[in-house]
């Protein structure tokens, strides 16, 4: 008896001594919080690996992981990064190639649009945790009351008409909610995706900024006009979370934003309008491109990590089919991280539980990051330009757009400022490189 006890104690001690701790940096989005909650499953399957979590708000996370990876700090073993960072960081040699995801991982099952954005020379450098595009979410009851019907593929013209018809200032219902908060991942993402469908682009083939074109003027004028007519007050401070709160409390008739929000607005626990929401593709101008983006939150291993093998085991667990099944079992099918695997969209249980699934898949598949706009461009990226300088100029341009939305300057002034500041930044960064 005592021999058995001492053997088991010795074994326990040995495993405690050998246990490797990996530090995971992630963003405080709902799906990641679920991952953290369910991670006891991973620890049970891998008793030799301990997990340490660093959960941060998106902007702070980005600053921390960028500083860590650029200075080779080695603080984190798994980093949550987006499709913007992966190709840039991969090229810099800052990420470890993911070749240890295991035989059952089924890399072929990843959606091609997402997978290609995360690969360099056909090798995966980050695994997608969830993927998203953008779409129109609308209140079926309000639209019906207004005597209109939402097409599956609406035009911007229809959206403006519908927004006006649904607005009822007296009862605090605003026809449309769009991001207005300045930031390259906030209003700039939305307006850039919008501009693609209006025929505008950030740069021409010689990296010359294009904000002085008619296409940009049309885009920004439409955005400012429609928000002035039918948007909520204070829109210039609204980002994803603010608009989500407005929509869930029944204050928005329409909201054009991330497909991942589909699960939040139809969740009866959080949304007062859960059973009244309809979905449609992002709008277009009949120019061949729709105003939807492409994004994925991914998990990657920085090359400074000394525990790459354990980190890859964790990534494999968190982005596998088994993980989706685990979430479905614990939280229901609608809560499964969307937009990464073909098999999820072939699963009847999921398709039935998630009324937004079809539009999500169609939106993701409709985007081509290498040809995002009507005219040719020298860059990759739909709602961003995949160059290191974009974080800075994207936010600075977003500041100008939010000033136009707040009525602090005209559309022409905002675009002239945007043109000037992007020209300056590109000159300082010595483009074309």
């Amino acid at each position, binding site marked *: 008896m005592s021999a058995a006890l001492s053997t088991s104690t010795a074994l326990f001690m040995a495993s405690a001594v050998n246990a490797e701790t990996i530090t995971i940096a992630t963003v405080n989005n709902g799906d990641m919080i679920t991952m953290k909650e369910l991670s006891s499953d991973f620890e049970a399957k891998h008793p030799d690996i301990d997990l340490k979590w660093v959960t941060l708000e998106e902007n702070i996370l980005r600053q921390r992981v960028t500083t860590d990876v*650029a200075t080779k700090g080695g603080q984190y073993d798994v980093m949550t990064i987006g499709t913007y960072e992966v190709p840039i960081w991969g090229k810099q040699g800052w990420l470890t190639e993911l070749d240890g995801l295991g035989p059952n991982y089924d890399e072929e099952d990843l959606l091609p649009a997402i997978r290609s954005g995360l690969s360099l020379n056909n090798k995966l450098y980050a695994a997608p945790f969830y993927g998203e595009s953008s779409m129109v979410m609308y209140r079926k009851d309000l639209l019906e009351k207004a005597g209109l019907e939402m097409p599956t593929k609406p035009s911007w013209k229809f959206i403006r008409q519908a927004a006006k018809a649904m607005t009822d200032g007296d009862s605090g219902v605003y026809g449309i909610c769009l991001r207005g908060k*300045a930031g390259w991942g906030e209003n700039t993402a939305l307006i850039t995706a919008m501009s693609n469908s209006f025929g505008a682009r950030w740069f021409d083939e010689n990296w010359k900024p294009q904000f002085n074109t008619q296409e940009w003027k049309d885009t920004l004028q439409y955005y400012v006009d429609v928000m002035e007519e039918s948007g909520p007050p204070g829109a210039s401070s609204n980002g994803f979370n603010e608009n989500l709160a407005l929509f869930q409390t029944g204050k928005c008739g329409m909201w054009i934003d991330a497909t991942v929000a589909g699960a939040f607005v139809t969740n009866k626990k959080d949304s007062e309008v859960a059973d009244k929401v309809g979905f449609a593709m992002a709008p277009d101008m009949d120019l061949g491109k729709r105003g939807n983006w492409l994004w994925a939150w991914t998990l990657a291993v920085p090359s400074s990590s000394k525990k790459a093998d354990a980190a890859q085991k964790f990534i494999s667990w968190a982005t596998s089919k088994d993980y989706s099944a685990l979430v479905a079992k614990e939280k229901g099918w609608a809560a499964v991280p969307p937009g990464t695997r073909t098999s999820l969209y072939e699963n009847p249980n999921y398709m039935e539980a998630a009324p937004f699934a079809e539009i999500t898949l169609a939106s993701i598949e409709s985007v081509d990051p290498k040809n995002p706009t009507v005219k040719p461009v020298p860059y990759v990226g739909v709602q961003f330009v995949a160059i290191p300088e974009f974080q*800075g100029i994207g936010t600075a341009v977003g500041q100008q757009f939010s000033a136009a939305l*707040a009525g602090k300057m005209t559309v022409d002034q905002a675009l002239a*400022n945007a043109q000037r500041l992007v020209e300056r930044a590109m000159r300082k960064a010595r483009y074309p490189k």
Partner: protein
Amino acid sequence: MATTHSRTLAQIMLFPSVVLLLAWMIVPLCMTLYFSFLDYNLLSPGTEEFIGFLNYEFFLTDPAFFASFFNTLLLVGGVLLITICGGIGLAILLDQAIWGRNYVRIMVLAPFFVMPTVSALVWKNMLMNPVNGLFAHFATLIGVDPVDFFAQVPLLSIIIIVSWQWLPFAALILLTAIQSLDREQLEAADLDGAGPFSKFFYIVLPHLSRAVTAVILIETIFLLSIFAEILVTTSGGPGYESTNITYLIYTQSLLQFDVGGGSAGGIIAVIIANIVAIFLMRLIGKNLEG
């Protein structure tokens, strides 16, 4: 009485701390100065090279620089004005013998203990929000359009939030000063038939001048680097309407990861802060002498 020996001993013992303190200040300052002459972006490693004053040229000719410079002055001036005037008023009120005075004092002092990010969040989401905020609710009750604070008057909104936080500090210092006032002077003035206004302008206010100077100097140091309130509420916008120098340097260093540009901005901020400090010491610092 210190002897030469004990003085020498004291100097020897102080030496390590003085060296440590100097190094603590000088090393980062020298590194900042060095980086400010480099083309150094964290996201493009291996391309660092000496570029002379180019970072300074870009920072000083940035349209955001002028806006942020004036915003910094307005922010500091506005908050000082509100906290000094309000502080004097509050200090006089708190000096009155009222029932439950101690509780009132604690209540008035409370905002000073709230973290800047927390107070900014409360103001943004619960008070000034144009849809769900308390002010919007009152405006709707009386049939007026709610003010969209952070879009229409962004800088004023930040001045209000920061003043709310710093008012207790000013009130506390000024209250202490008022309490040190010799009551016999006031009684003598009463006997001479002086009214409350005369007593305030000829006795209380002159007595407060040193305390006011101390408040101005201490607050200015902190107000020049206001950051959390801006980050949480407006992120410097719309446009550059609520960007101050500190926030501008933050955007260069941590949003654009332009270490060179951010460092140049940092050095310029140090120079501006020193100019302000010298100006203040010349203008009002003499109050503290003697």
